[in-house]
């Protein structure tokens, strides 16, 4: 490759919305060369970003690390398509992550960043209002589809302990809002938003740009550990919907469960039933560690964050 020798930063899942945002921010840095690993095509790719269109589990993905000049891995290429089979999910996410971490250990990558999620704690009626990083990861109890994210999160934290020469960072952001196609943003983009009658939990949201900011901060040398990443504050769900001017349809919980079960089986909705727990119980985290140790501050106000889904 032409040009001066530069440190390479590998981003998995670069073709996703967040992956692109991170890549766009990093490739402008003078001493960084961004390499993406993603099965999907990277549309509108700048020339100075390399893109390897392979499966995370493949040998070719491993070859990216072979030269030994990878300065950091940003792992955000987890699959969370609720429609795909559990086996596919598990194999891609867990095996893929295992392979990546093996490669990082073998070729001495000094920094690994995993983009996990605050959903690993899970919404529960007996949650304290703010969960710290050492809270148990109970998300899988009510929602099987999140089990492999929890497994990936745990794999990475055991990697953190086993390979102390590598600075491992796990970021657990709250509900990310913006142009991303994740469940909370999709939910808020519905024309009529179903809510659960009599439930209005406090929720935390974060602007996608602020997540990118946190990821870039995690690249700083010396940063390691697990960080909850929160946005500008916490509001009731109803306030978000009012801010967006959305008409809501309150449905009793029992009815909602069977209704969404039927819609799901009929492939009429992309929201699996256990996601209902997120609009029923709190799942909020304490982000003070990221603020004190990462020096991260959300840039966007609550209003901007909420409005970001409509752009």
């Amino acid at each position, binding site marked *: 490759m032409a040009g001066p020798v530069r440190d390479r930063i590998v981003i998995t899942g670069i073709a996703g919305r967040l992956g692109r945002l991170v890549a766009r921010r990093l490739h402008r840095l003078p001493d960084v060369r961004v390499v993406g690993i993603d099965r999907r095509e990277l549309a509108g790719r700048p020339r100075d970003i390399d893109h390897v269109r392979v499966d995370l589990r493949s040998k070719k993905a491993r070859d990216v690390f072979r030269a030994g000049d990878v300065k950091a891995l940003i792992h955000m290429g987890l699959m969370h398509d609720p429609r795909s089979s559990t086996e596919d999910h598990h194999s891609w996410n867990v095996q893929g992550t295992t392979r990546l971490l093996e490669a990082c250990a073998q070729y001495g990558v000094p920094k690994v960043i995993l983009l996990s999620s605050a959903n690993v704690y899970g919404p529960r*009626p*007996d*949650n*304290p*209002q*703010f969960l*710290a990083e050492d809270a148990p990861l109970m998300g899988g109890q009510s929602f099987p589809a999140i089990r492999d994210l929890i497994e990936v999160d745990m794999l990475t934290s055991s990697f953190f302990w086993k390979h102390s020469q590598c600075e491992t960072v796990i970021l657990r952001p709250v509900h990310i809002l913006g142009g991303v196609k994740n469940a909370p943003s999709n939910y808020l983009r519905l024309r009529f938003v179903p809510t*659960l*009658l*009599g*439930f*209005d*939990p*406090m929720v935390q949201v974060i602007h996608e740009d602020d997540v990118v900011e946190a990821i870039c901060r995690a690249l700083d040398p010396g940063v390691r550990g697990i960080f909850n990443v929160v946005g*500008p*504050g*916490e*509001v*009731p769900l109803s*306030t978000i919907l*009012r*801010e967006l001017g959305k*008409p809501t349809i309150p449905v*009793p*919980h029992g009815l909602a469960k069977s209704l969404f079960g039927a819609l799901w089986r009929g492939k009429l909705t992309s929201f699996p039933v256990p996601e209902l727990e997120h609009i029923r*119980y*709190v799942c909020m985290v304490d982000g003070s560690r990221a603020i004190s140790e990462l020096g991260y501050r959300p840039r966007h*106000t*609550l*209003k901007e964050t909420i409005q970001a889904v409509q752009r």
Partner: protein
Amino acid sequence: MRVGDWLKQQLFHWVDDQLPSSFRAKLKALPTRQNEYGYDPFGFNRDDAKVAALIARFFHHTYFRVQSHDIARVPSGRVMLISNHSGQLPFDGIAIAGSMLYDCEQPRIVRAMIERYVQTLPFMSYLFARWGSITGTPENCRRLLEDGEAILVFPEGSRGISKPFTLRYQLQEFGLGFMRLALETKTPIVPVAVVGAEEQAPAFNIKPVAKLVGAPAFPVMPVPPFFPIFPFPTKYRIYFGEPILFDGDPDDEDEVLEEKVKVVKNEIQNMIRIGLKERKNIFW
């Protein structure tokens, strides 16, 4: 504007008219940590809390005609109110919260620790949060104490509130959690005795049914309306004790903590005894 929002606004206007203006001014002056939408991190909202204040006013002034003694003993800043718990429905909590609103020089919002079970009940789940209650976990309590709030704890929990009529004014076993937290955060404890609530709903708890429906208790009254939905309008007398600041290691053995808890429990039992002696009639 949506119909629901309009109704809510009308309700808030009506509530504002009902509350005396001096009280509203005092309520407005209360320091709270609200964000741009008017919510604190636990979901407390001043406008919603006014509705609660009006409800509490009805029970405090009219229904139970609460008479509070020595409320000036409650110190400013972080404090734990530890009270006996009774009466099948938590009207004692409303009465204490009402006293802290209406009998104090400067009204204070009491943050009550509520059962985790309440989070699973529609409407209650968020209404209680809007009114300042919090789910009863040690983490939540610690956080609020560090912010200098007043916390109301019923260490008897559901053992107290759902005890049968025959056990009235006999304190049930106290949990130790509150003492650990008080030691850890160096919070003064104010023992509180509520006299009157124990007769408001003479009921018996049918445990098998409670288990069946998954509720902490299933109380039944031997007289109509059989379910303790409406308590009898007994007269409430609330006694506030001298604040006690305990000293010690929060991680001590249970036996050591039990000694300290016993001090609080005896204090409450004493005040109950005095209250019962002073009282001439249950209803006035």
